[in-house]
């Protein structure tokens, strides 16, 4: 009963992917799809194609020259925005004046009480936020220049002594790519199932059936400590791992 309902659910959600790619699903449909996507490579692959097609639709319209005044209004609007709205980190909070213990001589007037410190504060904040902006840009350049994502070896086990492979994690896409080879042959009707193991226990993220394969999972690395593959009853695997761990890797 359980696998059939899961399959029906998958089929039903898959039918909605076109509408979802157009951002026209309602709140409940959206929540259901977004809960399903991390566990289903088929739906994620299809969604990416559907989004690409949606991305082409603006080109169906004829370009039209807007009035020059529109450009001025856009410029005025963005110039009116506060600097932090452009995405730099929030400014450093103002330092608090320390509380004065009663048995200590009152310290001399601090910087903050000496007349009008606000211009100086503004100057400091500007310097800090410019510094943070520069750091942010630098970080973005570094991320863009990363040659390859970090690679972690998949360790074999007694149940799969010849198996091996690698996990690559791409932090900008929050994508794990597993390349696995020489998994032991599956008993009839079973599949290999991938698990991400975090504080809440193992989370199923998908199944495949070829002993040498590449498998992609979208997930946030910070939430998990281990990735593992077991063999499970097919066609959709199990809600929790029942088979032996075949390969695994720490994250």
């Amino acid at each position, binding site marked *: 009963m359980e696998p059939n309902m899961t399959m029906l659910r998958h089929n039903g959600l898959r039918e909605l992917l076109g509408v979802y*790619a157009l951002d*026209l699903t309602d709140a409940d449909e959206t929540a259901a799809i977004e809960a399903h996507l991390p566990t289903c490579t088929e739906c994620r692959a299809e969604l*990416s*194609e559907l*989004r690409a097609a949606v991305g082409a*639709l603006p080109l169906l319209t004829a370009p039209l020259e807007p009035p020059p005044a529109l*450009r001025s209004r856009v410029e005025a*609007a963005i110039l009116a925005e506060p600097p932090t709205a452009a995405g730099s980190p929030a400014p450093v909070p103002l330092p608090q004046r320390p509380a004065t213990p009663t048995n200590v001589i009152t310290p001399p007037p601090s910087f903050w009480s000496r007349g009008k410190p606000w211009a100086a504060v503004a100057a400091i904040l500007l310097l800090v936020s410019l510094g943070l902006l520069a750091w942010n840009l630098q970080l973005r350049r570094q991320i863009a220049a990363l040659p390859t994502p970090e690679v972690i070896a998949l360790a074999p086990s007694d149940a799969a002594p010849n198996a091996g492979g690698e996990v690559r994690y791409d932090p900008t896409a929050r994508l794990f790519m597993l390349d696995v080879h020489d998994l032991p042959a599956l008993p009839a009707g079973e599949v290999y199932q991938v698990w991400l193991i975090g504080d809440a226990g193992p989370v199923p993220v998908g199944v495949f059936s070829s002993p040498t394969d590449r498998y992609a999972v979208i997930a946030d690395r910070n939430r998990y400590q281990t990735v593992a593959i077991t063999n499970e009853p097919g066609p959709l695997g199990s809600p929790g791992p029942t088979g032996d761990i075949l390969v695994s890797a720490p994250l």
Partner: protein
Amino acid sequence: MTAPDVSDNELLAAVAGGDHAALLGLYDRHSRIAYGLAYRILSDAGAAEEAVQDAFLRIWRRASTFDPARGGARSWLLTIVHHCAIDLHRRRAGAPPIVAGLDEIIDRQATPDAWGEVTERLDQERVRAAVTTLPVEQRRAIEMAYFDGLSHREIAERDGLPLGTVKGRVRLGLRRLYDELREPEHATERHRGT
């Protein structure tokens, strides 16, 4: 005004760093498509201007949520223009918004699209030619969703169709469009019998 060899992605990354000139550079490059799209949806010059202005302000504010590594800055930008225009169109028509927040939708554009940079090189002629290969009912469903902002339920009601039929037409139409744009010479073979 902007060097021709600076990519949209690079401009958008600069916008994320607070570069006003970069945002205006994106406007100069894409305002004609943006305004044309908004005008098609709204059929009113004033409303179209309002939608484009709103869109570029949101682009300014949320540029840092766009991941430059995944490609597709133009698609992301035009998606925001589209959604601002549809949002205004629905409000003007007295229709309720389909989902709560435009910002949530913008932030959700996280799934990388299948082609990244390839989408950026498409042109109007190619897309129009590809759309003409769609069965007319699929094309109509997509156009009602995309240019009128109608949900699958609203299309089903308007045309007296089962909900599943509408969902299927939208999905199959978009899949076919993807196949056609990716490999026009093979798409007709793959869809023989569809």
